[in-house]
């Protein structure tokens, strides 16, 4: 296990290195000069040159990359061009919303999707199974932003149970802050849960038809015990991997949902920063997202390894 963790952390470092190069090249190859955006359309060429020098944009690309990457390693993330505050402070503020949002969404989608999928598999072919799968198909097809609007209509405007948007901050009342995150997390989690449910259903059905489930039944285990102790743990292995694959979609979803629910999170920040050609901010956020995705996938890998030790290599035929 320790070796497996080490190997994956090494892979993670390599991915981040490659990711940083790609992010840097892509963003610097994009059209749009931050200096022009900052100075406005009537900027004099002289002013543009001076600003370029000030921002370090006149340096050769490799040098600019090394400056950025070196900064990252020493946790000096640079300064936002538009907000004139350290990027680290900006990120910290926004992460306080987006990280809990992504966490709650991940939890909700797993907590809804997996049991629903297992329940459908256990009722294969019955009306309830079909009903669950039709509902899942429906939720899967609803785009985050539209689902978000529907949830606002129902829970905020009709039932008045939850706020329709905005974020009161964590300090005055953590509970109020959490309540503000419920609807956006649901809007994001429902389509994810639907995908997980469908996948979990077919994985569970596959596991149920395995010989070892029959062995378990022949020992005298009931259908439920055979399902939960034997079929589900085996079905979880591919599904957990899917959670990792879905996570980037979840992160991009936060960008849209934060806009719909008017949450000042990371997603909103990255949209604004792109609009303003705020290169340091965009670079850092994109790399941060890469880091989050890689981290979640390492966690998912280790969870799958724990569930199915055969994945650890050194197989025997």
């Amino acid at each position, binding site marked *: 296990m320790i070796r497996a963790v080490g190997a994956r952390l090494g892979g993670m470092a390599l991915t981040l290195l490659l990711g940083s190069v790609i992010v840097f090249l892509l963003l610097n190859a994009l059209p749009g000069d931050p200096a022009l955006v900052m100075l406005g359309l009537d900027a004099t060429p002289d002013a543009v040159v001076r600003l370029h020098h000030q921002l370090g944009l006149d340096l050769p690309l490799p040098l600019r990359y090394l400056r950025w990457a070196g900064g990252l390693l020493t946790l000096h993330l640079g300064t936002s061009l538009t907000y004139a505050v350290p990027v680290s402070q900006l990120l910290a503020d926004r992460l306080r919303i987006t990280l809990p949002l992504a966490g709650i969404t991940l939890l909700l989608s797993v907590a809804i999707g997996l049991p629903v999928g297992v329940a459908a598999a256990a009722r294969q072919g019955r009306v309830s199974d079909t009903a669950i799968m039709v509902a899942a198909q429906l939720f899967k097809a609803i785009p985050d932003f539209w689902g978000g609007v529907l949830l606002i209509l129902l829970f905020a405007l009709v039932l008045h149970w939850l706020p329709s948007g905005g974020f009161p901050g964590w300090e005055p009342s953590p509970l109020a802050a959490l309540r503000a995150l419920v609807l956006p997390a649901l809007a994001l989690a429902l389509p994810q849960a639907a995908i997980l449910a469908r996948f979990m259903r077919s994985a569970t059905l596959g596991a149920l038809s395995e010989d*070892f489930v029959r062995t378990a*039944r*022949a*020992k*005298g285990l009931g259908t439920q015990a055979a399902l939960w102790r034997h079929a589900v743990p085996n079905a979880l292995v591919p599904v957990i991997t899917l959670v990792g694959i879905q996570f980037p979609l979840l992160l991009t979803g936060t960008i849209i949902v934060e806009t719909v629910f008017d949450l000042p999170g990371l997603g909103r920040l990255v949209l604004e920063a792109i609009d303003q050609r705020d290169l340091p901010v965009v670079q850092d956020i994109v790399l941060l997202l890469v880091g989050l995705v890689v981290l979640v996938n390492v966690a998912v890998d280790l969870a799958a390894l724990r569930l*199915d030790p055969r994945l650890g290599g050194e197989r*025997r035929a």
Partner: protein
Amino acid sequence: MSVLLEVEGLSLRVRRGAEYAYLLERVGFALEVGGTLGVVGESGCGKSMLALALIGLLPRGVAASGAVRLDGTDLLALPERARRATRGRRIAMVFQEPMRALNPTQPIGRQVAEGLRAQLGLGRAEADARARALLDRVGLPAGVASPHTLPHRLSGGQRQRVLIAIALACEPALLIADEFSTALDMGTQAQVLALLAELVAERRMALLMITHDLGLLAQVCARALVLYAGRAVEAAPTAALFAARRHPYTEGLFGCSLHAGHTAPGTRLPTIRGQVPPPFARGPGCCFAGRCGRVEPDCLPEQPPLHAAGPAHRVACLHPVVTV
């Protein structure tokens, strides 16, 4: 000897649209305490379905009728709860495909202990201790495999030993072995088989062995039941069957198997021409008529009943093979 298992008129029916078909049709036999019975026949004759019907794990959509009496109690009439109490406890089963019959994500000790906990209500520590002893007994002592070993670290023969330990755990009265060693190489097969025979004798268990391997039949089983297309076509003591086959199907089956090693190079191996008719394509007459060399017009209108053809020897054929 007292009778342990009595199967009477056991039929298994499946439905397709408005049609019905029989996977097993009025099969009957008896097995004494500590007795051994081999069920032979080609694939598709209903051997595995018979095993699943006995242990009560038929796939959905297969309806059983008739009687399966264990110590006088008709298992088919029991509610699922009571039926489950017999699984593992009174009737246990060793499955084919040892590679797939063990849960790949669970240590073997736990898989052995699980039945003990479920059926005998043992606590964790006691079940684990018994599981370890069972693994020792089936030839997997501490040096070879620990209870924490995962199935993928074991060879096919070792996995088969674990499956035997699982089946023996609650000391059942009847053990069903379904093609249980066909996935193993010859040497391993012999070892595992010897172990199984030894354990069955030691614990006075009755053994119902499903096989298409006549060598195995001869080695292990005192009696034999030949199934063809869901029907019992011949039943006899194994020795009598080896001495003289009466049903043309049994004769064909033995011909394919026993002479296979004695065929001169360049000549064709003996076969039974044609295939087992699938359940929905079986007519009213003798089910073997379409492949039989001895077929006469009177074979076609109805299924020939089993009748006596020697001491404890019964055959379902109007024109049985006569050997001198």
